[in-house]
Each structure stands twice: as structure tokens, then as C-alpha cells.
């Protein structure tokens, strides 16, 4: 009796010690999380209710920042509209392009690894370098794109200097980075069991049927992943506009994150920018939740009963 009791006590002590050790090992991360993540996030929630210029202490102003955002800042709505445009058009185009490239490169060809590398390369080029390169490609008069269009007898648009074409130009440029998504699709394509294709071919299924009945359904978890990551990334679209257009022409590329950045670091309205950040967070969260909710209907997980 007493032997088991001491053993139990020793077990408990050991578990406690293990916990302590575990915590100690996790401590650097925990401290980092608390200091560099949890605290700033909570602080920004408080600042969003303040007037705060980063020099003087924040002054509590209640919902004034939000009131200004929704009712007095025309650029808030404009930038939100610009960002939603990218979400609605840029994101699907990018997803489909990445998938299409992955399907093309999922072939047993000689030198396929070379082609895969080729398509992946642009997505590891720094965005700033890519952006400056594309500034030249998109030059209305001497850019390669319009020169090529002219050869086909098409007079190309003014791209980045035309408010109507600036966002499509950025979407076009975004396709260059499709390699990132492509790699993930490629990995998923290799995970699809060969037996499914064999069974399908025995049943007489051909190209499009195989694609829509086997490949795409099996890829849906990865599509969901890319969609969610893309959604979050697109809502934070910033660097390209910051480098290439500074938000112009006529605010057509002033995206939400750029407007936020300008408010925070040009005008030093830290409170206002914090409010903007929280609004963006809620919008992104709502969209992500919506996607998750609907995903039950279109995402297939192997081993799941349907």
C-alpha cells in the first residue's frame, strides 16, 4: 500500500519536474510570444481607442477613430474597395494559374525538374526587385508587354499610369509569383494514390473526367490551404504598391495596408492606424471563417465519411 503511495507521489513529483523542464525549454518562445506578439496586439486594441502620435502618451478618445474611419475618410473606403478588388479578382486568378502550372508540370518528362525550378524561381526573387523589373515591363511606350502587344496590332494600355489598368497590371505581375502555390500543388499531386487513377482508367474515365472527379477533389484540402493563405496575404497587399505606384494614379492602388502604413508612419496617427488594423483583422477573420464554413461542402479529406 504505502509502496504504491510513494511511487505515486514520486510519479507526481517527476511529472511536475518534467512540466517545469518543458516550460523552461518553451520559455524563450513564450517570452517572445508575450513581448513581441501578445502585448503589441493587446496594446494596439487599446491604442485603437486613443489619439496617439507615438511621442506623447496616448489619449483615450473612445470610438472617435472608428467614427472617422467609417464616416469621414474617403480613402478608407477607396482603399478597402481596392483591396477587395484584389481579393475578388487577383486571388482567384493567382490560384488558378498556380494550379494550372502545377498540372502542366506534373508530367513524367525529361528535365521536368528544370522546368519546375524555372517556374518556381520568380517566387523566391525579392518582391522589391521583381517590382522594379515589372515597372519596366509595364512601361506604356517601351515596355516589353506593350511592345509585344503592338506586334499583334494591339495598342496596349498605359498600365500603371492609368487608374483603370493599374490593378489589373498588378494582378498580371502577381502571376509571376504563382510558383509558390505551384510547389504546394505539386506536392499534393504526388500524394494522390496511383490506384485511383488506375481504377478510373479501368472504368474508362478520360482526361477531363479524371481531372474533375479525381485530381481536383483530392486536391481540395490544399486548395483550401492556398485559398486561406492567399486571402490573408491579399488583404495585406502592400509591397508592390509601395514600391511601384505609391498608391497612385488617383489612389487606384492605395490598398488598405498602404493607407494604414501612411497613416501610421507618415502622419503618425498610431491610434487611427491601430483602429484600421483591427478593422482589417475582423474583415479577414470573417472572410476566413466564411471560407471554412463553406469548405465542408467542397473539401474532401481522405478517410472521411461523406
Amino acid at each position: 500500500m504505502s509502496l504504491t503511495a510513494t511511487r505515486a507521489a514520486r510519479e507526481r513529483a517527476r511529472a511536475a519536474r518534467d512540466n517545469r523542464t518543458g516550460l523552461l525549454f518553451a520559455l524563450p518562445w513564450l517570452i517572445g510570444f508575450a513581448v513581441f506578439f501578445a502585448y503589441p496586439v493587446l496594446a494596439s486594441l487599446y491604442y485603437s481607442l486613443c489619439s496617439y502620435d507615438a511621442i506623447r502618451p496616448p489619449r483615450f478618445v473612445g470610438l472617435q477613430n472608428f467614427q472617422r474611419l467609417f464616416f469621414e475618410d474617403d480613402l478608407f473606403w477607396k482603399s478597402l474597395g481596392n483591396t477587395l478588388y484584389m481579393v475578388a479578382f487577383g486571388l482567384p486568378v493567382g490560384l488558378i494559374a498556380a494550379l494550372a502550372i502545377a498540372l502542366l508540370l506534373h508530367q513524367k518528362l525529361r528535365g521536368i525538374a528544370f522546368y519546375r525550378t524555372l517556374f518556381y524561381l520568380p517566387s523566391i526573387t525579392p518582391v522589391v526587385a521583381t517590382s522594379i523589373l515589372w515597372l519596366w515591363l509595364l512601361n506604356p511606350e517601351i515596355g516589353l508587354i506593350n511592345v509585344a502587344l503592338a506586334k499583334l496590332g494591339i495598342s496596349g494600355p498605359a498600365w500603371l499610369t492609368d487608374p483603370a489598368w493599374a490593378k489589373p497590371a498588378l494582378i498580371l505581375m502577381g502571376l509571376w509569383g504563382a510558383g509558390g502555390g505551384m510547389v504546394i500543388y505539386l506536392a499534393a499531386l504526388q500524394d494522390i494514390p496511383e490506384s485511383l487513377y488506375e481504377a478510373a482508367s479501368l472504368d474508362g474515365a478520360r482526361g477531363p473526367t479524371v481531372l474533375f472527379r479525381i485530381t481536383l477533389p483530392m486536391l481540395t484540402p490544399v486548395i483550401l490551404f492556398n485559398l486561406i493563405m492567399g486571402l490573408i496575404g491579399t488583404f495585406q497587399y502592400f509591397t508592390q504598391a509601395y514600391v511601384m505606384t505609391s498608391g497612385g494614379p488617383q489612389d487606384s492602388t492605395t490598398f488598405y495596408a498602404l493607407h494604414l502604413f501612411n497613416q501610421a508612419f507618415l502622419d503618425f496617427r498610431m491610434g487611427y492606424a491601430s483602429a484600421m488594423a483591427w478593422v482589417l483583422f475582423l474583415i479577414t477573420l470573417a472572410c476566413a471563417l466564411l471560407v471554412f464554413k463553406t469548405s465542408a461542402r467542397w473539401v474532401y479529406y481522405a478517410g472521411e465519411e461523406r
Partner: protein
Amino acid sequence: MSSNPLVTRRDLLRAALLPAGAAALAASGCGRGLQRTADGRREVVYWTGWSGAELAEQEKLVAQFNRENPRVRCRILTQFGQSGYQKVRIAFAGGATPDVMSTVWAEELAGYALRGVLTPLDDYLKRSGRDLDAEFTPGVARMLRVGGQTYGLAVTTNTAFIAYNRSIFREVGLDPDRPPTTTEELDRAAKLCTEYEANGSFRRYGFRPGSLQLWAYVFGGQWYDVASGTVTAAHPGNLAALTWLQSYAREYDLRRMQAFQTTFGSDQTPSGPFFVGKIAMWQTGEWAQEFIRRYAPNLDWGWFALPPPADGTGRTNVTPAGGSVFVIPKACPDKEAAWEFLNWLTSPGPVAQFCKGVHNVPPLIAAAEVDPYFHTDPLYRFCVPIAQGENAFGPPPTPVWPTYSREIGRVEEKVMLGGADPKQALEELQRRMEKEQRLVGEDLGR
């Protein structure tokens, strides 16, 4: 489990924390007390916003100061680029400012001054026997004062003018020795010099005016009334300027003009459109001379001041004033040493040397006398009096100016490219900036 480990957990933890703590202490650098160098001199840390050739010129001056001054030693650090200027705000927020800095734009001065992070310099100026108004050009002196106190000093200013290609003038029948003196003449010359290709795109264009902010002054307008502290965005002169700018949007396809312009290099490369004769008139400043000397030495060119309208409602010889401003943060622990350095750096000799080195106009009247270059070089003979004139306008001393100035740019774009109505656009700007001023005032008044 070993009961007697060679290294205890505590040791490990201590070892991990020690360098981290030391690094944090070293990185913060705040709460600096009086700094002394090894040879016992007081040390002044100076953040400069200049880089490249301009930084080299500043370093030369700092080296000279360090050689000549037995008491104070200056250590110069460059914080260049847009992020360098943003770093300043963070430094103020964290109380980790240097002793002297030039990483403040003139347009930001009022905001910093009214937030109480800058040292007023009037007492120091007085003690050193200096007089802001007597020494500096009126435009620069006005810009350095906020609420009656001096918060910064400048070592450079600029003169805006229009450079023109004399060969093109001759070619189209304009007298190259009599450049436009009114906006009407400018418009006519611009039209004469413009040539189109068969498909309607430009072969060459005459002139594309920019900066409503500046042209408003040429048309007799103003953006801010210092005496009453009120926003005057809807001033009739501003409207006249914007309406005139709009006339260019009506006369020319600005988008095509812009596209045409981008086919050439920037204005700092040999293929800049003015250098290769693709634009006849170019709104620029005194620094352009250096680029023309370097990239288009055979260009036959001249210059004229921004011309006012013929009806006499405008101002002649208008130019912006401004650039980087030197300040001493309030948190500086050794203001005497900081002033000793700043006082020397803003004296005529060093200012003349720096301006000549970086191809800017000296904002100190005496500096222009130190070096005969400013009187013998034909362009400087033209630029110096304009910079020293009454119609040099720096950023008005209001904390909303950085926002205001950007919004003026948006209004200009909306009218020029978006077809907005000038009067409505300016009235809306007036309302918004009044509100902005009130909100910032509430913040600063507490």
C-alpha cells in the same frame, strides 16, 4: 537522471540571459549621460539624413570640426532614406535621440516643436551673438520659427526655375534671349514647342507644369495664414493656379505626356528627356546644372523664374524654401556641446562649403559672400537673389502640414487626371484641413 550534473539548469539559464541582457542594454542606448571621448572631449552624436556624395561633404566638415575644436568631438551617423526620417519619430518616442540631427524635414518641424521634443534655440543664438532674421533668407527664417520660437537651423535651400532649351526656342521662332515672363507667354511657348507624331503621340512637348503647392504662390495664393493660424486652401489665388494647371490637362493628353516622359531616363541620367531635347521647358532647380554639365555638356540652355499671370495678380520670383532642418532634441544631455557643433556647422564658412559641394543655394546671406562662386557662376547669380527674396516660401508652421501637403497633391491629381472641379476640390480640402487642424489642436492643447 544524473543527480550531479556538470552544468545545472540554472547555469544554462544564466548563460542564456546574460548576453541577451547585455545586448538589450547596448541596443537601447537611451538614458545616455554626458559622453566623453578617450581624450576627455565631450562627444556629440549627430544623425544626418544625407547619403552618398552629400554625406561625404558632411563628413569632411565634421572632420574639420573635430580637428579644430579642442573641447567637443562629433560622431556622425547616417540615417538616410525615407526610413531614416521615420526612425527619428521612433527615437523621439523611445527617448533615444542623438544630440544633433538633420533627419527632420522642414515640413515636420512644427509637429515636433509643438509636441515639445525639441530645444528652442533662441537663447543659444543670442548668446552666440547670432540673429536669425539678419542672417538667414526670409523664407528660411520664417520656416524655422514655430509660435515665435526658433526650433531648427538650415544649411541648404533651393531655387525653383524653368530651364529651357535655347535651340528648340530658336527652331520654333521664339527669341531664346527673351524667355517667357508671364504664364500666358509660357503657355504660348509650350504650345509652339510641342510636336506630335502621326499617330497622335508626342514627338516632343513644350512644358508640363507640376506642383499646385508651388504655383499657388505664383498666382498670389497661400495655403495657411500664419498670423491667424487658419487654413486658406480655398484662397482665390490657389483656385487661379489650379484652374491654370487644369488648362494644361485640357490642352494636352497628360497621360500620354506622362507615358512619353517615362520612355526616357530619369532627370539624373544622360537620357533624361530635357537633356536629349524631348522636352523644351523643364521645371527644376539649381541642382540641375550639375546634371546638365555631366550628361549634356553641349546643351544650349537657359533659365527663367516661374512667371506670374500678366494681369498683375501674382507674385514674381517665387520659389520654395526648405529641405532638411537641424534640431537639438530636448532629451540631449549636453546641449552646450551640441550647440557648439551646430553653431559652427551653420556658420557662413561651412555652409558655403557644403552648398557648393552639393550644388544647393546657401540659406545664409553671409555664406553667399564667402565664396565668389555664388556670384560668378551665372546660374547662381540668378538663383541666390531669388532664394533670398521675399517670395521664397517654406512649409507653413502648422503641425498638419505633412498631411495637408499630401492632400494638396491629391487634389492636383484629381483635377488634372480625374477631371474634378477645381473650386469644389479646394473647398472640400479647406473643410477637411480645418477639421484636421482642430483635431490635432485638441491633441496638442491638452
